[in-house]
């Protein structure tokens, strides 16, 4: 995730705006088929929401893309390179360009938060000196909205929401271009969830990240996703903006977005549009300060929300 300061001199060639391309993917566990002939493209710089009922294989799809699950058949290209049959070195090259946030943070329990964040940096860039390493860990942690004091805490001393933020800090540690998020707002309170959404959007806008986001949270879908992919009937039945999806005649999609919860989320988005910018600034302040309980240092966060 880096900002192209000039127009990229090495014209990154054809079709490079597709970061993840899944083609004809089939996954099965024993006799149970999870995915069949599944196709999905993720474009560079977008936040793609992946939704689907329980058991439709959202997490399995993510695990297939990041190589934790060997698909029964099909092709998966990430950054234009096939994920099948690659050597360890090649796989490592690709892995250093993405970050993954697992559902419960998946922090290493024997390491402090800062050490957790340093793990991927140490692994991929062993030559970095300790001072810089510590500083990187520290600013990543503060940037995800955790108080600076939590750097030296162990995961068991953090709440669920803080663990997710720490997990996000670790996922962002090596400045990836692509971010996988598995239900980032599940289990967070509405304020925390909204702040997390704002954070992800701000990071994307600032750093040009591509985000693959699995979620159940209708508010998240409305608030930050550029496009939404719907998993049903063992494949991706539709991809598009929410408006485009609403125009479709699929029963599950209709029920999902037009159910009472879906409508409430849509309305709250409309209402939110008006005071959006102001609200974002507030939420970034929530990100920075609310968790730390330091009320003293708010003045430096005034421009915190204007991330675009």
């Amino acid at each position, binding site marked *: 995730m880096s900002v192209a300061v000039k127009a990229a001199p090495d014209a990154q060639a054809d079709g490079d705006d597709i970061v993840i391309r899944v083609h004809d993917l089939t996954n099965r566990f024993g006799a149970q088929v999870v995915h069949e002939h599944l196709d999905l493209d993720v474009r560079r710089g977008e936040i793609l929401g992946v939704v689907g009922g329980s058991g439709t294989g959202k997490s399995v799809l993510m695990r297939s893309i990041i190589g934790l699950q060997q698909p029964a058949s099909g092709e998966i290209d990430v950054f234009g390179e096939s994920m099948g049959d690659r050597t360890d070195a090649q796989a490592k090259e690709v892995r250093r360009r993405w970050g993954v946030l697992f559902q419960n943070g998946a922090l290493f*329990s024997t390491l402090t938060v800062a050490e957790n964040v340093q793990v991927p940096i140490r692994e991929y860039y062993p030559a970095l000196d300790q001072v810089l390493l510590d500083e*990187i860990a520290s600013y990543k942690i503060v940037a995800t909205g955790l108080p600076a004091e939590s750097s030296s805490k162990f995961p068991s001393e953090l709440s669920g929401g803080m663990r997710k933020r720490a997990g996000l800090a670790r996922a962002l540690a090596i400045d990836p271009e692509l971010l996988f998020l598995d239900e980032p707002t599940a289990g967070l309170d509405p304020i925390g969830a909204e702040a997390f959404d704002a954070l992800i959007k701000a990071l994307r806008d600032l*750093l040009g990240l591509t985000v693959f986001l699995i979620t159940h949270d209708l508010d998240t879908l409305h608030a930050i996703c550029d496009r939404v992919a719907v998993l049903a009937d063992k494949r991706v039945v539709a991809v598009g903006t929410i408006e485009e999806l609403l125009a479709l005649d699929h029963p599950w999609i209709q029920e999902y977005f037009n159910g009472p919860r879906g409508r409430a989320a849509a309305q709250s988005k409309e209402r939110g549009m008006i005071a959006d910018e102001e609200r974002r600034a507030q939420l970034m302040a929530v990100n920075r300060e609310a968790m730390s309980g330091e009320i003293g240092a708010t003045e430096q966060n005034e421009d915190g929300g204007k991330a675009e």
Partner: protein
Amino acid sequence: MTAPAADFTQDDRTLRFTGEWTLSRLGNVPARLEKLDGAPDTVDMSGVERIDTVGAWLVHRLRRDHDVRIEGASEKADDLIQKVGQVDRPFQIKPDELPSFQRSLARIGKSTITAGHTVVGLLAFFGETLIAVWQMILNPKRFRGNAVIRQFEVVGVDALAIVGLMSFLIGIVIAQQGAIQLRQFGAEVYTINLVGRLTFRELGVLMTAIMVAGRSGSAFAAQIGSMRLAEEVDAMRTLGLSPMESLVLPRVTAAILMMPVLAFYAAMMALIGGGLFSWFALNLPPVTFVARIREVVPMTDVYQGLIKAPVFGLIISMAGCFQGMQVEGSAESVGLRTTSAVVQSIFLVIVLDAFFAVFFASIGWI
């Protein structure tokens, strides 16, 4: 990625940055920035083609430490440097640690307190179990026969193979080692005394207790522990079920009743092992072996084993269930508690065995 890697040149007090200032392309730039010739006052970023947060951090650091002016940065790069600067806080990577001497003192203190709490907790748990037993006696319909029988199977029947094999081998080992020593005195025939008395008095029940602690005590702790994690125990309470009645009592009952049976069976298997060894290696036929066993092993030895066994069963199951009930928080705690259940029950069994030995000796069951 053909853009040149991050680099810089120093031109008097101006640093000219070029290339891709991203984590993967930094190379030795951070180290070189550490040892500049004289403090810079200007950073020219017009040659920078890409920048990520780490690159921005390096620029921010220069600005923070040397108060440099930044020139030629694109709007986005400038924004990134600003943002990174906003999240610069004093930090600490590891929690504070006491000096090592105080740390060891603290550790001793903590484990003493933990040990004290465990003893008190175990006693309280024993009391709770007794109350549950009393209520069961007052209201016998609540007795969970099926659960007890299920635990009979788990604690007793399923353990037969491993306890039998182990005891059989122990019998052989005692006979073989005994025979080697006794041969020096031409008293090989006393091997039978050794095997007979040792297995009934001590080894049958002790080895069984250790095996049951490892198999069932740990299983009790792990089962109840994971039920606590999944809030099953709390659910039981809210539904009016007593966890003591439905979880603890069946397990304790099964362990108390199964231990003597298993211990006796273990002693018999050890006798068979010793007997076979005597037959093949020492040429003592089974008839002689059995006759001599009846002669030299007093009934009190058998009683001793049978008296100790249910007590050990009680201790093992209590320790297992108690530790299971102490599980809190994470899955790691299940593992820790399971380990303590096994360690505690084996320790208590051996301590009590020593008391029993003294006690039986003093009432003349020698």
